[in-house]
């Protein structure tokens, strides 16, 4: 699928700009990005490529007029807006490095101007592939619930949607080849043939599912894979990740769901984060049906697909963390050149929190922090929209005390809980049980303070376990990780303005 960033927005020129203006804009941006690219900043490398492609398109008169003609025949666009809020507008000049947070909010245009003319069409078809583990450990209630879930998903879909189902254990089998969802009963019957046996070889399942999904890969659909497993895969993780990177470029996102406690969360998180999907933990088989149904419901409400983010900080500024807050909180791979954010839903903003480090001894005045580019394909228009933002803050010797924006403070409060469980795990991995105990105890105390009594109890239970066994229970560890992650999404649910 062709994915062309809007060249005019990227270069910051008007659609009618002449060659001289375009040359000047390109030269200026190239000059601004080159030092960061030289320092190996992944976002700057990506943004330079973007502006080079934009420049190549606009400076070729034949390609440019073809692009303009295509654009003119499109319906009047809607698109989205980006708004970036810093934790402080004015920072103090310090002899030491300091940290600043930036909240990037991407707002679907339908929401940004509520009184805009016609309502947006919601006819995004799904191209959905379910990849379901039916290894031996899925035997009994787990596989039964998965089959019920598959049946309900089929019920939810319409004839506009394409569904494929792949089952895997030691090998993969296509249970339902990619097909439009017409004869629901026949499709549901086919899912019942899956029997639990064998081990878990995920690459085989993932690859078979990808082949099915690619058959109907189209820009006016939501192309998505949901992979559900209850076990570890051995030896083929790198192959899975390589495939996931390919998928992210093709426009297929992958959500991963771990059932029970015997699966590799870091691995499933990574597959989801690379492709713009989400990763989740289903503690008990009973929750499978509602969990999967919700996932599919969210997919069918997608306004724009293949949302992509690049952050090019100035050479001395470092991006230390990137985290998607809404929808579906997910850690993002800040070391990737292009960060995939997945789908943006109708009337719900997407928000991403960035943590940057500013070096010591910056000059008083305006400090340039870098440039952010967001793009995404609005499904109803089959068109890629692009938004850019130049980031800066003021530096002063003695800034007046300003309270940070509440939405940043709220998000950080929740994100900190998630970070605390991560740090406790880091301590355990380093073999420092004492530190881990202290960190987990701090987490439990904080959870109590913010009124999360159930989770606090889980944390206290794990503290006790840590003291006797020097390890956490897998279930407890995953509960703390995914439940604190869910809390992040509850900050504002993306619903308020």
């Amino acid at each position, binding site marked *: 699928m062709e994915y062309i960033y809007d060249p005019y927005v990227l270069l910051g020129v008007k659609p009618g700009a002449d060659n001289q203006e375009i040359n000047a804009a390109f030269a200026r941006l190239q000059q601004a990005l080159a030092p960061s690219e030289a320092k190996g900043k992944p976002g700057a490398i990506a943004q330079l490529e973007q502006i080079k492609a934009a420049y190549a398109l606009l400076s070729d008169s034949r390609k440019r007029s073809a692009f303009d003609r295509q654009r003119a025949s499109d319906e009047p666009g809607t698109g989205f807006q980006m708004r970036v809020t810093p934790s402080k507008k004015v920072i103090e000049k310090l002899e030491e490095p*300091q940290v600043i947070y930036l909240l990037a909010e991407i707002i679907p245009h339908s929401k940004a101007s509520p009184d805009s003319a016609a309502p947006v069409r919601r006819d995004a078809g799904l191209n959905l592939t379910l990849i379901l583990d039916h290894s031996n450990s899925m035997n009994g209630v787990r596989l039964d619930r998965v089959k019920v879930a598959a049946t309900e998903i089929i019920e939810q879909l319409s004839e506009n949607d394409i569904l494929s189902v792949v089952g895997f254990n030691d090998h993969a089998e296509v249970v339902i080849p990619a097909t439009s969802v017409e004869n629901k009963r026949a499709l549901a019957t086919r899912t019942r043939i899956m029997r639990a046996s064998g081990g878990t070889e995920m690459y085989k399942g993932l690859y078979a599912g990808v082949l099915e999904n690619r058959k109907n890969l189209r820009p006016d659909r939501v192309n998505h894979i949901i992979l559900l497993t209850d076990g570890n895969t051995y030896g083929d993780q790198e192959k899975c990740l390589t495939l996931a990177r390919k998928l992210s470029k093709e426009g297929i996102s992958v959500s991963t769901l771990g059932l029970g406690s015997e699966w590799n969360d870091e691995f499933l998180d990574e597959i989801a984060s690379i492709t713009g999907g989400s990763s989740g933990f289903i503690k008990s088989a009973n929750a499978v049906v509602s969990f999967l149904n919700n996932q599919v419901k969210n997919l069918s409400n997608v306004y724009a697909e293949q949302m992509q983010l690049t952050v090019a900080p100035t050479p001395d500024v470092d991006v230390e963390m990137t985290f998607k807050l809404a929808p579906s909180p997910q850690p993002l791979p800040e070391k990737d050149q292009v960060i995939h954010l997945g789908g943006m839903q109708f009337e719900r903003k997407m928000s991403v929190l960035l943590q940057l480090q*500013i070096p010591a001894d910056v000059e008083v005045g305006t400090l340039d922090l870098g440039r952010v580019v967001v793009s995404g394909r609005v499904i109803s228009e089959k068109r890629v929209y692009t938004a850019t933002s130049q980031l800066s803050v003021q530096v002063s010797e003695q800034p007046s005390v300003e309270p940070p924006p509440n939405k940043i403070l709220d998000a*950080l409060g929740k994100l900190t809980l998630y970070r605390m469980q991560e*740090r406790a795990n880091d301590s355990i991995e380093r073999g420092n049980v004492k530190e881990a105990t202290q*960190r987990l105890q701090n987490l439990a105390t904080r959870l109590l303070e913010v009124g999360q009594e159930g989770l606090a109890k889980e944390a206290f239970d794990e503290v006790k376990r840590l003291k006797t066994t020097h390890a956490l229970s897998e279930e407890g560890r995953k509960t703390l990780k995914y439940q604190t992650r869910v809390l992040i999404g509850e900050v504002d649910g993306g619903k308020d303005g």
Partner: protein
Amino acid sequence: MIVCSNCTYRNREGYFYCEDCGFPLADSMRDRTATRQLDSEENVLSARATWGTARLTDASQILLQVTDAKSPIQLSVVARSVVGREDVSSDHHPDIDLVPYGGLEKGVSRNHAMIQRSEDTLTIVDMGSSNGTFLNGQRLVSNQPRVLRDGDEIRFGKLVTRIFFK
């Protein structure tokens, strides 16, 4: 630099929650906060547990005021001072002896707590005392240092004191 009042971790400026322990960083903990000046002794003794500054300068004097005592104890905390109870029979002499203030009756241990001075902060750590050390009413976990702020109430067993930076 923002020193966390819970764990003493030194966070970079710009953090809102401690990077190490996750606790909210109070605005008053920030370095630029001016030292709170108290007008009179009366004011001092009626001060509730408020957020005083945690920052010390080289010139700061540290005073430990035992409730009802006529004059405060001036602490010459260079690096670390043990607060406790002198016991001649076991030849035990803490840096700060609370016997003259009723330490024996009020349950002060021989090695009760230690006050430590780092570059620009003061911390207290309970040394496993029998009757506990309480900071602003909260019992301290033994061997875990906590940052002291100007005006904090410290209770050694039942002996109530208040610490001031001047």
